[in-house]
């Protein structure tokens, strides 16, 4: 199948929003930086909104989407219900901020909102786990989606922090590097899974990814842009590059990496036996 750009942007933006909302929850629970609250909440809403719009663009008949509410077993039901609940939690968080709610209230709201956010980040990948597409039939896929949500959320959070303390910079650097290493491990795990997938076919082989037609996408966009450059940006000293510029460049890179991983996934998604 093709690259399915609307689904690529749907899952990328939704994962960005989910990751950032969880970062905001951590920010609340550890009372790190109250300045990020408003900007962060608006950014989460924008990301979820852009994801939602992208998903609608994919549908042939979006006006019939409410029919999905009657079939709770489908992946789309889980995605649409979780995006709705997460969005409501963000709105409640904004409402609470507007009413100068106590720190305990904000902690409670973000904790409750983090649950559907994490489920949503996982579910947008889990919807593609299906036996008909051997390259997708692995739980590594949703975990890679979840991992990209965490990485994007971490970099997005770093952009929002104004004048961070040295300890916060070093801690966030350590966390983002750890998440990048975890994401690299998930990418490797996915390639290994591909090489062992049933109904082997050249169109979805690990060789095709590592040295074939998808090699520029894999090595260029996923490995170099999506993993290596953000990792290097993290290690650059504060004096040589402002933290916000480093974080912005890092977020652009990890977003490109996340989108490229999804493009790769869709292009590898050939069926067991393609008739037509």
């Amino acid at each position, binding site marked *: 199948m093709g690259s399915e750009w609307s689904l690529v942007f749907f899952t990328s933006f939704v994962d960005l929003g989910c990751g950032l909302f969880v970062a905001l929850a951590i920010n609340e629970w550890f009372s790190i930086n109250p300045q990020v609250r408003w900007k962060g909440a608006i950014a989460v809403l924008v990301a979820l909104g852009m994801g939602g719009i992208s998903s609608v663009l994919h549908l042939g008949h979006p006006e019939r989407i409410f029919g999905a509410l009657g079939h709770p077993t*489908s992946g789309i039901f889980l995605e649409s219900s979780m995006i709705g609940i997460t969005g409501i939690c963000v709105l409640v968080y904004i409402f609470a901020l507007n009413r100068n709610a106590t720190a305990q209230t904000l902690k409670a709201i973000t904790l409750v909102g983090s649950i559907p956010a994490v489920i949503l980040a996982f579910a947008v990948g889990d919807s593609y786990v299906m036996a008909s597409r051997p390259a997708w039939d692995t739980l590594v896929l949703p975990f890679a989606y979840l991992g990209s949500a965490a990485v994007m959320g971490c970099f997005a959070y770093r952009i929002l922090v104004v004048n961070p303390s040295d300890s916060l910079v070093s801690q966030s650097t350590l966390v983002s590097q750890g998440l990048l290493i975890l994401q690299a491990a998930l990418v490797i795990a996915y390639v290994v899974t591909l090489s062992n997938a049933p109904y082997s076919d050249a169109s979805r082989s690990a060789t095709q990814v590592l040295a074939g037609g998808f090699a520029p996408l894999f090595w260029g966009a996923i490995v170099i842009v999506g993993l290596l450059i953000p990792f290097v940006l993290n290690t650059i000293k504060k004096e040589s590059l402002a933290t916000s510029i480093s974080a912005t460049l890092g977020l652009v890179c990890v977003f490109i990496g996340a989108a490229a991983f999804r493009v790769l996934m869709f292009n590898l998604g050939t069926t067991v036996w393609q008739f037509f």
Partner: protein
Amino acid sequence: MKNTMVIDLDRCIGCYSCEIACKMENDVALGVYYNKVLTIGPTGTFPDIEQYFLPTICQQCYDAPCVGVCPTGATYKSADGTVLVNKELCIGCKYCMMACPYGARSFNETQKVVEKCTLCGQLQAIGEKPACVKVCCSKARLFGDIDDPKSDVSIALREAGSDNIHSLPDSGNHPSVKYILHRKTATWQATPPKETWRTTNQSGRKGDKQHG
């Protein structure tokens, strides 16, 4: 009850009349197929080479994954076991196309919905058989209730013997369509076909394209 199809590959001569009849009966768009005849082979080493034709359609799976993933219930199983699409409910999300192991579904760009082989329900309603079955000049296609031991399909399968009955690869969907192929005709190829002549357009059949 499970209406399905049994296709006798010993009889199929690869005339493609089933493809044409299907497209005409169901007004299938250019470049889209509900029913496509693949050429499997030639395999082996000269002079011992084999080839057979494989008419492919929706496999009317017992555990159809397309039904499970449909978010609106547009894809459903009818009382006779046929997997169908209610176009009035379809939102065009294409998840069913992704879930089909064989790429047997296609997206109607005009109506913005997914469609597939219906086993010609409109013909069954007036007591006729699907168009591809009616038109098959070598009587290779049989249609009926596979749960009824007296049906054409059940009799054909009994007569063929279990060693000569084949199914497409099963990834848990349990396809109900059966193929009869005796060893004297050719060896059943369990691996996916590598048909290239249509995609390269060397045959002059332009407009063929990939779906799913």
